[in-house]
């Protein structure tokens, strides 16, 4: 290329560069000469402020759209913390107007004195101030410089403690949560779901805070708004729960507990779940004792905290007992039956004689009917809940097959529906080994070492050869003794024992399942072998009504059990509510057939007091037996017999669901 051409092009480039500079310089002159005054005012300390406008959280509604939890605007009184002297003077005035307790006042005073609040942020004095006090403050505006009244959303629970364990609660975000969710735009003082659905669906419920950038005068009063971003309400949850049914379930549980307490005064806790067997939808879920989530709108007291969370109280109210692990007792027997049928160790027509006890080696395992059931087959064994029958088939079938079928039906498998899920467990030989082997080994290794060390020091100071030999011999003897002890203990504590299979067959031993798992397992029997994933939230909807997320029934698996075997077990469960069945008295005169199973879990002695404890009552059922719609599981802690405690609650809930007249209900007692 010619030099002239190049130089022409360079000149054009130079022109472009000059243009860029002209643009930038004119912009700078505009900003710094002509607009400078405006920006200088804006930048003056404390003049420009962002005021965050907290977004309302989404609502929680029942399946028909009725609101259970929502946000309500409340008044918050704060003081602009511009100078400490004024802030403290205003605090004095306000504490009289708002009738603060001395402690409340002192707490805020300390916060100001310790400068925990940045100088451009308001100091909160009181939340949820009633309207008349707000008007009073407004009237005295002139004497209260720096005092501001804001409106803020707060959680409101329209049905009080109803469904508390499911909806959970919200509280101010703590430092740990803040650090974990840093990139999600949380800031100190924000609300955060701490439990239940509020926690599980926090990201959907929270909404997007808005903000105002404002110019304020020295007194902290807004002079001019510079920009506004409206808050966006969070999405709402539509539950699978029906409020009407839930309300009844809660009443039924309270009533049943009061009734049972007449005979068993410790019957203060329990839980109940009802599922749609064709979808896995949870229709009602109750846990007792319960609490009022609205207490978390303020600071909770030490006593409240203890009653909710402390392990030292007998029945911490926060625990969702519908998701806590319980020994299932006889409600487990369908699993044992299915395992035996699948393994072919028994057929439906196999007859086993129950003389009132089962003998294995030197061990004797009693049937609850100590007088014996005589000759029983599978259906009758379920009907009368014959323990000897299940001991026998359980022992024949073996722990592995029983555990396999239990897991097949979702037992011991976390459901993930809420963050607060208790520990559940299908005991197996591997589990037992894993839990016990290492601690035992470590314990004995320590013992061996102690013996060695003890003799080493003795031998070191031994006076002659003979004494030394003697000590060595003694040491070897002691070591051999310890080793023998270890082997014995290993056999007992680490290896699975036959008696454990036998205990497991009737749902005792280390079995631990939640009422929800029990309800779901029975639902799977009811619907012919489809295990659904239980769920609580039907859909999530945006404030404009659009569906954000929809949850549909999810099949976890078709259980690997022959349909005819399920039919036999169903037949047994139907018999439970008929004739000599353990729950027959509960369903006298019912227009629909109910299939059920009672369970009474023995708890043994209280490790603290050494006293024999009352049994836990359990009950599972599905109905109608010929075309199952719902399954229910209930537990009453220390409620005695399953049929007369949990059974009554479950029966009444079924009656409520099917609209059955309650006038001719049975007595609710069976002698299991």
């Amino acid at each position: 290329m010619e030099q002239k051409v190049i130089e022409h092009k360079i000149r054009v480039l130079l022109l472009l560069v000059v243009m860029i500079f002209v643009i930038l310089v004119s912009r700078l002159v505009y900003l710094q000469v002509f607009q400078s005054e405006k920006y200088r005012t804006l930048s003056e300390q404390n003049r420009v402020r962002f005021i965050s406008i907290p977004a309302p959280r989404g609502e929680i509604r029942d399946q028909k759209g009725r609101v259970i939890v929502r946000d309500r605007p409340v008044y918050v009184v704060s003081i602009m913390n511009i100078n400490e002297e004024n802030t403290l003077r205003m605090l004095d005035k306000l504490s009289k107007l708002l009738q603060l307790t001395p402690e409340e006042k002192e707490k805020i005073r300390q916060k100001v004195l310790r400068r925990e609040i940045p100088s451009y942020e308001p100091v909160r004095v009181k939340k949820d101030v009633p309207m008349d006090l707000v008007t009073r403050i407004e009237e005295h505006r002139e004497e209260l410089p720096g005092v501001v009244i804001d409106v803020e959303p707060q959680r409101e629970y329209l049905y009080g403690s109803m469904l508390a364990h499911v909806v959970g609660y919200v509280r101010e975000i703590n430092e740990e949560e803040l650090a974990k969710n840093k990139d999600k735009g949380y800031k100190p003082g924000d609300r955060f779901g701490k439990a239940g659905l509020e926690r599980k669906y926090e990201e959907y419920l929270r909404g997007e805070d808005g903000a105002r950038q404002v110019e304020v005068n020295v007194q902290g009063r807004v002079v001019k708004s510079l920009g506004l971003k409206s808050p966006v309400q969070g999405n709402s949850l539509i539950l699978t729960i029906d409020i009407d049914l839930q309300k009844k379930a809660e009443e039924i549980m309270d009533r049943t507990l009061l009734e049972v307490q007449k005979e068993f005064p410790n019957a203060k806790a329990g839980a109940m779940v009802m599922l749609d067997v064709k979808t896995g939808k949870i229709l009602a879920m109750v846990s007792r004792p319960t609490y009022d989530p609205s207490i978390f709108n303020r600071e909770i007291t030490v006593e409240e905290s203890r009653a909710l969370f402390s392990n030292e109280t007998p029945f911490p109210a926060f625990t969702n007992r519908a998701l806590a692990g319980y020994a299932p007792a006889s409600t487990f027997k369908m699993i044992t039956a299915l395992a035996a049928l699948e393994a072919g160790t028994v057929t439906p027509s196999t007859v086993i004689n129950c003389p009132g006890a089962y003998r294995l080696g030197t061990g004797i395992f009693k049937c609850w009917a100590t007088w014996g059931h005589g000759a029983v087959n599978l259906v009758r064994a379920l009907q009368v809940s014959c323990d000897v029958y299940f001991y026998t088939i359980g022992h024949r079938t073996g722990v592995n097959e029983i555990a396999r079928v239990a897991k097949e039906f979702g037992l011991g498998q976390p459901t993930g529906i809420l963050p607060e899920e208790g520990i559940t467990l299908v005991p197996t030989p591997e589990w037992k080994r894993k839990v016990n082997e290492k601690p035992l080994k470590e314990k004995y290794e320590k013992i061996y070492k102690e013996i060695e060390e003890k003799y080493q020091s003795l031998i070191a100071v031994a006076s002659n050869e003979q004494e030394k030999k003697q000590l060595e011999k003694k040491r070897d003897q002691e070591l051999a003794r310890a080793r023998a002890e270890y082997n014995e203990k290993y056999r007992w504590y680490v290896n699975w024992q036959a008696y454990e299979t036998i205990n497991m067959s009737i749902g005792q031993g280390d079995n631990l399942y939640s009422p929800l798992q029990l309800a779901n397992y029975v639902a799977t029997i009811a619907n012919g072998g489809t295990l659904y994933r239980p769920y609580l939230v039907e859909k999530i909807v945006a404030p404009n009504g659009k569906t954000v997320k929809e949850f549909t029934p999810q099949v976890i698996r078709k259980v690997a059990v022959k349909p005819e075997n399920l039919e036999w077990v169903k037949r047994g469960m139907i018999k439970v509510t008929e004739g000599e069945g353990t729950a027959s008295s509960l369903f006298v005169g019912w227009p629909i057939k109910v299939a059920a199973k009672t369970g009474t879990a023995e708890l043994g002695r209280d490790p603290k007091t050494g006293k024999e404890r009352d049994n836990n009552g359990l009950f599972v059922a599905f109905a109608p037996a010929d075309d199952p719609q719902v399954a229910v599981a209930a537990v009453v802690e220390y409620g005695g017999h399953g049929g007369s405690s949990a059974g009554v609650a479950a029966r009444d809930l079924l009656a409520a669901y099917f609209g059955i007249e309650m006038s001719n209900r049975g007595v609710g007692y069976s002698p299991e």
Partner: protein
Amino acid sequence: MFERRHLKNLDFPLIIVTILLLLFGLVAIASATHFTAGEKSNAPYYLTRQVVGIFLGLVAILFILRIDYNDLAKISWGLYGINLGLLALVDILGHTTLGAQRWIKIGPLQLQPSELAKVLIIITFADFLQKRAGRLNSLRQMLPCFIYIAIPALLIMKQPDLGTTLVFIAIMFGMMYTAGARPAILLSIFLGGLALAIGVVYGQYHFGWKWPLEEYQLKRLTAFLNPTRDPLGSGYQVIQSLVAIGSGGVFGKGLFKGTQIGLDFLPRDEQHTDFIFAVLGEELGLVGELVLLFLFFLFLYRCLVIAARAKDLYGTLLAAGVVSMVSFHLLVNIGMTTGIMPVTGIPLPFISYGGSSILANLAAVGLLLNVNMRRRKITF
């Protein structure tokens, strides 16, 4: 290779301007990292690291001066390959900051390949173009050039680093124009691309298209049009930057006395990097900024002089590439801090904190010095 006569031909004005710019930058970093909010100053930490960056840059200059820049043309395909490799490496083992993968960690050093990529692309593209000089008259003939740039540009876009991608495009236009590509075609492509980009952003903004930009990118890109729409989010930096510069006025609030910085209104991690110009604007005012802009102008002017008197087209193209790169950086960086350009996050050359950026820019200076040393013997 390195002859005495070459040393005599070193362009001292360029060297002096560069040194002044670097000093300006160090002062700015000191101020931006010196907090008045009662905390310990972080300035020594950042200054030390920046000085290390400058030192590495000087080493790079000495290294570059030792070789004849024409030798670089011989290995241009190799350099192009290394360039792509480094960029691909970021995707594989990149270090994420603020949601974008831009860094590769090598021991205590963090390398930002997209910064070096700019200089490497100037070196290799210059060779690519000099071989096609005189054959850039139709769209068909230009197409290989576009593909040549598009490959690394897409890799950078993927990180995602929109700002640097745009720098590539600016370099491409500047160098192709200088290499003799038909201005009418270049201009129509430029205007067409601009219209398309505006159309896409408009479509995403008004019709809720989900592609090709992520929501946060769109928010950042459009925040400058109306920062008060989202004063806490995407508009925050722009508002605060405008307040900082505007309140600086003609003479500024004085070095180390800026309140926007002292009170952390401007995000801390951007005070000394992308938004450093706002710090200068607040503290040194219009006067200080005009001095800085004057230095930049001198720098670019020297580059153009070198471009004009280079002994061959390759040298001219190298210089033109550096001019395109630096002037586009100025336009976008200062434009974004003053609210006339979208926030794309590219540094202010020689001033912003960042070792990779300093190293790359000084390497570019080395190239220019090299071209100038070996210029033809003519005088204007």
